[in-house]
């Protein structure tokens, strides 16, 4: 039984995820299918990309930092992305940006984001800042700093520019930025290919720095590479639906509990499927059963926030 558990969990979750996707495409559809299917298909694709990006980036981040509480969003990654978006708008002005097109902009933002986070977070995770609570505190401070800077700059932007670009800043599950869907998909595929080649090292990296080095990994280099992959994934999800602070924490920790094995071959797919079920399934349930249109992010953040507090409490008690 214990040996088959990962397979059983994977099969069950796959079925649930498929059911959620089918329901998302069909439930409550009025009007012509030729209109409904592409319209919903695009939204579904965006949600799937976000689910994948958040799940994978959180699990990998926790693997390289050897903890289960810190996540990229808690450490301020997506706040940094929003800040970079704001700076780019601030620097170029909306007229210029419109001529560049959203895809070029996205690529520029991701590139800047990778450069910055590589510097900032490599220093933060290099071992100079010791202890989970200190790291957490620094992350929270960074997040707050990035958010205040973004707010300040958004206020200083020409009101006309701001009106034009407002929806860029306030992406959410309901106002998905589908115009960059193709580019985002491409980024996710590129990350996955690169990640696939490192796949066997993930389980070893999870044993911690010293064990990984003893077992022959080039630890520093691998950490940097994984951090770049994580950063790109965070950029993708933030660009598509805006920041979601506790979602990654929720699915990653549920995945550790359900998977019944610490192997990434099990944990990663379980986390991805859970994220899909939460996002797509959650969207259907809220929209059609309760007729709440905007509540999904609230519900997810609420559950994720509770998970975060429980994790912190269980750690201090130990």
């Amino acid at each position, binding site marked *: 039984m214990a040996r088959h558990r990962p397979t059983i969990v994977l099969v069950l979750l796959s079925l649930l995820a498929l059911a959620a996707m089918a329901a998302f495409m069909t439930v409550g559809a009025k009007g012509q299918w030729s209109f409904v299917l592409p319209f919903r298909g695009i939204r579904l694709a965006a949600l799937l990309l976000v689910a994948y990006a958040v799940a994978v980036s959180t699990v990998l981040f926790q693997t390289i930092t*050897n903890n289960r509480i810190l996540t990229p969003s808690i450490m301020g990654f997506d706040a940094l992305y929003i800040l970079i978006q704001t700076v780019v708008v601030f620097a170029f002005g909306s007229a210029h940006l419109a001529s560049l097109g959203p895809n070029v902009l996205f690529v520029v933002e991701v590139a800047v984001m990778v450069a910055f986070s590589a510097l900032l977070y490599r220093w933060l995770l290099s071992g100079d800042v010791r202890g989970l609570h200190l790291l957490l505190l620094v992350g929270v401070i960074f997040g707050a700093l990035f958010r205040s800077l973004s707010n300040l700059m958004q206020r200083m932007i020409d009101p006309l520019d701001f009106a034009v670009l407002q929806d860029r800043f306030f992406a959410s599950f309901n106002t998905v930025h589908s115009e960059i869907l193709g580019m985002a998909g491409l980024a996710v595929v590129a990350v996955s290919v690169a990640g696939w080649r490192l796949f066997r090292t993930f389980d070893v990296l999870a044993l911690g*720095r010293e064990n990984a080095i*003893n077992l*022959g990994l080039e630890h520093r280099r691998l950490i940097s590479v994984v951090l770049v992959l994580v950063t790109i994934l965070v950029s993708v999800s933030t660009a598509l639906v805006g920041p979601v602070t506790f979602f990654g924490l929720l699915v990653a920790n549920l995945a550790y509990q359900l998977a019944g094995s*610490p192997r990434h071959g099990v944990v990663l797919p379980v986390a991805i499927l859970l994220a899909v079920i939460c996002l797509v399934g959650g969207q259907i349930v809220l929209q059609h059963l309760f007729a709440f249109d905007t509540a999904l992010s609230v519900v997810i953040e609420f559950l994720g926030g509770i998970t975060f507090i429980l994790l912190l409490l269980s750690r201090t008690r130990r």
Partner: protein
Amino acid sequence: MIEIENVSKAYGRSVVVDGVTLTLPSRGITSIIGPNGAGKSTLLSMVSRLLPMDRGHVRVDGLDIADAASDVLARRLSILRQDNSISVRLTVRELVTFGRYPHSKGRPTAADREHVERALGYLGLDGLADRFLDELSGGQRQRAFVAMVLCQDTDYMLLDEPLNNLDMKHAVSMMQLLRGAADEFGKTVVLVLHDINFASCYSDHIVAMRDGRVIHQGSPEALIRPDVLAEIYDLDIAVETIGGRPIGIYYLGSGSARRQQMPGPNG
């Protein structure tokens, strides 16, 4: 042969390893002894490339550890650290299987699995193989980590206090196991020991450290002597020869030892 050349490490102003130059011979057991804080663990961590050194070089079989590829080194040299904690929840067998990673790169073959079972057997862990590490006693967990190092099957094994948490029986069988690895398989074992008598009975060579320096080295007979031990530990230790080995008697400490030697004014 491990050549350690003028290796130093400082944390801020405090120098914890101070220009150590040392050659550890191939094959056989070398024990490192010395008081707490002497820099033994720090030295071992630098030799096994876990900790960057401030100065100096370490060569393993002529290979400079600063330039050599990490995966090549991982097939030559393994280390057991003093404190082993893993944030992932693993069973004993899963942990030990990781020892094969340098050879299997994550795809263990039948031969790798045989290695794992043999290592589990050597350390008496057969019955515990499917238990989670957090369900074991300290000594059982220590043996699981040693099994992992054994499984890595390297020519050089560095073990930082491998007898931690072990009862007498398991401590003796661990030392016999290491002696066997050295004698039968030609392994080079370097270990940090606190019990000078284990060092005396099982090592070919003993290195004594204090305040970040090597202050003595040589055969057990040369090192396990009252004058030398007093210099290393600041403690009067009587040495008796038992079964042809020098055995230090340190349980009574300086005060009581002196009281026995020097009767009171009226006695």
